């Protein structure tokens, strides 16, 4: 099987009935994606599969054959040491949008997906986007703050880029 993970083609020789989560963590060493329940209830294992947000514990790896997957490790650009954090990642850090951080990786992927199609999300939009991401430490408010802050930063930099072109 071949899966494109965070833009890189990876050959996977795992049993096809293993979950995508298992393959990401155990075979590809991408442990940023977490296992909170193994039953699709908590969203800690959220990744993007061909542009759709899924619980990777509920996807058999065979279903991902030939697909493109984005995990939390694929949100920043540039790679270390010249890594550039995505505005969401900066905002999550600044706003105390997480405490223990175990839900954060999945939460970030859900929010990253939201910002692909909505550059000015309302509180409702954000809460709907993270409706499947369980967090036991917060009450999700600091996530709303961070996503709106990140969206504003992206709008500003997009506007700046357009002005430059003009």
């Amino acid at each position: 099987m071949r899966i494109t993970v965070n833009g890189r083609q990876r050959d996977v020789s795992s049993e096809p009935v293993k979950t995508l989560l298992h393959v990401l963590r155990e075979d590809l060493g991408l442990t940023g994606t977490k296992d909170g329940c193994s039953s699709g209830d908590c969203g800690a294992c959220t990744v993007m599969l061909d542009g759709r947000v899924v619980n990777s514990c509920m996807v058999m790896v065979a279903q991902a054959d030939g697909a493109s997957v984005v995990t939390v490790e694929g949100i920043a650009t540039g790679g270390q040491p010249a890594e550039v954090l995505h505005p969401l990642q900066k905002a999550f850090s600044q706003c105390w949008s997480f405490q223990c951080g175990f839900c954060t990786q999945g939460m970030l992927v859900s929010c990253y997906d939201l910002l692909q199609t909505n550059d000015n999300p309302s509180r409702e939009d954000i809460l709907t986007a993270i409706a499947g991401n369980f967090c036991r430490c917060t009450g999700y408010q600091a996530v709303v703050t961070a996503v709106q802050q990140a969206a504003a930063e992206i709008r500003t930099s997009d506007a700046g880029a357009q002005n430059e072109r003009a």
Partner: protein
Amino acid sequence: MSAPETGIVGRWTSSPGATDIVTGRARYCPDIQLPGMLTGKLLYSPHPRARIRDINVSEAQQMPGVHAVITHADIPGENSYLYASPDQPILAIDEVRFQGDAVAAVAAVDEDTALAALRAIKVDYEVLEGIFDPLEAMQADADQVVTGEENVMLGMTFRSGDVASAMASADVIIENTYRTQWAEHAFLETEGSVARMEEGGGITVWSSCQAPHRDRMQVARALGLPESSVRVITPYIGGAFGGKDEAHVQMHAALLAFTAQRPVKLIRGRRESMLTHVKRHPIMVECTTAADSSGLILAVKARAIGDAGPYTNASHEVMNKFGEFIGGPYKVQNLEVEKIAVRTNNPICGAFRGFGAPQAAFVYECQMDEIARKLGLDPLEIRLRNGVDTGTQLCTGVVVRDGDAMKASLRKAAQVTNWKNRDQMNKRPAPHLRRGWGMATILKGAGMGRGLADHAGVLLEMHRDGSVLLNSAAADMGQGITTVLVQLAAERLGVKVSDVRINRADTDRAPDAGASCASRQAMVSGNAVLLAADDIRKTLLTLAAMKTKVESDRLGLRDGRLLIDGEPTDLTVQLLAERASNWGYPLQAQGRAHLEYPSDAPRVPYRYSSEIFQFCTQVAQVLVDIETGQVSVERLVAVHDAGKMINPGGVYGQIEGGVAQGIGYALSEELVVEKGHTMNPSLENYVIPMALDLPEIEMHVLEFPQDGAGPMGAKGVAEAPIIPTAPAIRNAILDATGKTLHQLPMNAERVLKALQD
């Protein structure tokens, strides 16, 4: 020496681990990979109570890929946990006493092989009739849950004043029976541990825990090793809330690594986690409260029976704290509280955010509103009339040193909610909907309590380039203690937060800091960091005084520079550190702090009383659907006293998260246990509010700095926010419907039943 404030303390500060977390690089126990590492798994009892006739592991041992199969007979040291009393075996011997008792452990090359090995273990059980009702367990002729141990593990009555006379002279008496539920921490990272034998026979254990030094003691006891041979490290930890205060699988992982002589990773699955770790105690409380016609509380009498499950764990502490706080933040002169903890074959109960205080607050704040209704008093008024002040002596004997925050939090909550005019809002927005408002106010101790060990040490070092290394063993489970400690070190040493690196808790690197529990670490470890930093600061300023010929009391440090009379100079902290290094002055310090209880305080008859108090008030606005019984929280205002905020991000985070847990505790969270079997051990069926279920939580923080607490008067804030939420919501339901609920959670079924009665 008073340090000039650099503005680091009190400023929103990101966690030192933030970048690791948002990039997915932060490693939690499940993320640790070691060469040759095996997967560990535990076999649990399918029965709440059974005798073990035989355990046959021979087939499992011979399976290819299986490297260790152990039972109680293979434990070289002590076969017991030791939170309080050594009555819970690590691996069951001849009897299982609840569903979470482990019987055997295996380590194999992968998870599938380990699970197959578990299936190959043959345990011959003789199923016994369990003891599931605490009242039955208390009968003299009841079977003993743990042979040789009384079922009533704690039965104490505390009396203050003359309750009988006070009751006789009362104008109002309110008597109710309350019931609370088993509640689950549901930390997102389940319990886990990784263990590796080291050269020389020692062992390293990575542990998702709240108390690394206590883990070290427990692992050493189990393996029969000296504590000096055991090293416990906390990697990133995915939440705890009291549920990782006691050790869980650390000893099993260590025993497997010891037997297999290979590294072992043992992570509980979600179902396994929910079946095995301690829960919040369900408590049945008979409470009588007496007041005079003006609403002054004359006496409180309560009898509380907590279902402990089979083993002691933190039941003494939880029931003791229940009794300590049952009087609430009020001037109650006459109190009688009977605290009982009973062994059963139900789930084991222990520490969970608040240690019995949430159950107590549900009782006293519900009673308060019922008295107010009977007398036609406003809920705010009756609380202000009875509330403590600075100098009030509680019925426990403790004098409240700084009590101004109690009434301040009430007044602030009333002001921001426009409490006095609340009835101007539509109380009946639709024919099937009723709206109501409720408030609750509480106190909760911060710190372990008088007479209990409450100390912490840290090691701090400044290098020749001015960078700082901080080693603390205070476990950070997400509550943010590492951020607070880094801020305090940076503040006192006049450097940037980013100049201070803190290691994850490691018993080989840092002295004991005690457990991260009881809202204590920001105070105790915080004070320890200030002491260590002052030591280094003194050396830096001595060197600066020699160089500048200015007396050191005119000198300060800020933003990496030396200050003279508060003005920055060209002399940098880095240069001072370099001179210290060149001349052989050590810039290393150990700080040790403990919470002090004033020696001039009167004798305190209530054992282990807290003397530093968290105060908070919450107001809930709810909408009740009288056709379905569904309650939705429309608005939740929380006003908390933090003493002094060190990191506002962490303080607001604790409040928001505590209230969210409180809403779940109030309305939906309940572990359903039938004859010792947990019926809903999954995140699907144990109903926790998610993002779309919660209201926007409005938070207000008061700062009444307290002497004798933490740095700059800071107080712990972690436990208080969960405590008033359930009674505030309950009182709002009462306001909306006129119905008095006395049982948690107040789910649609129970509310509908109350409406129909």
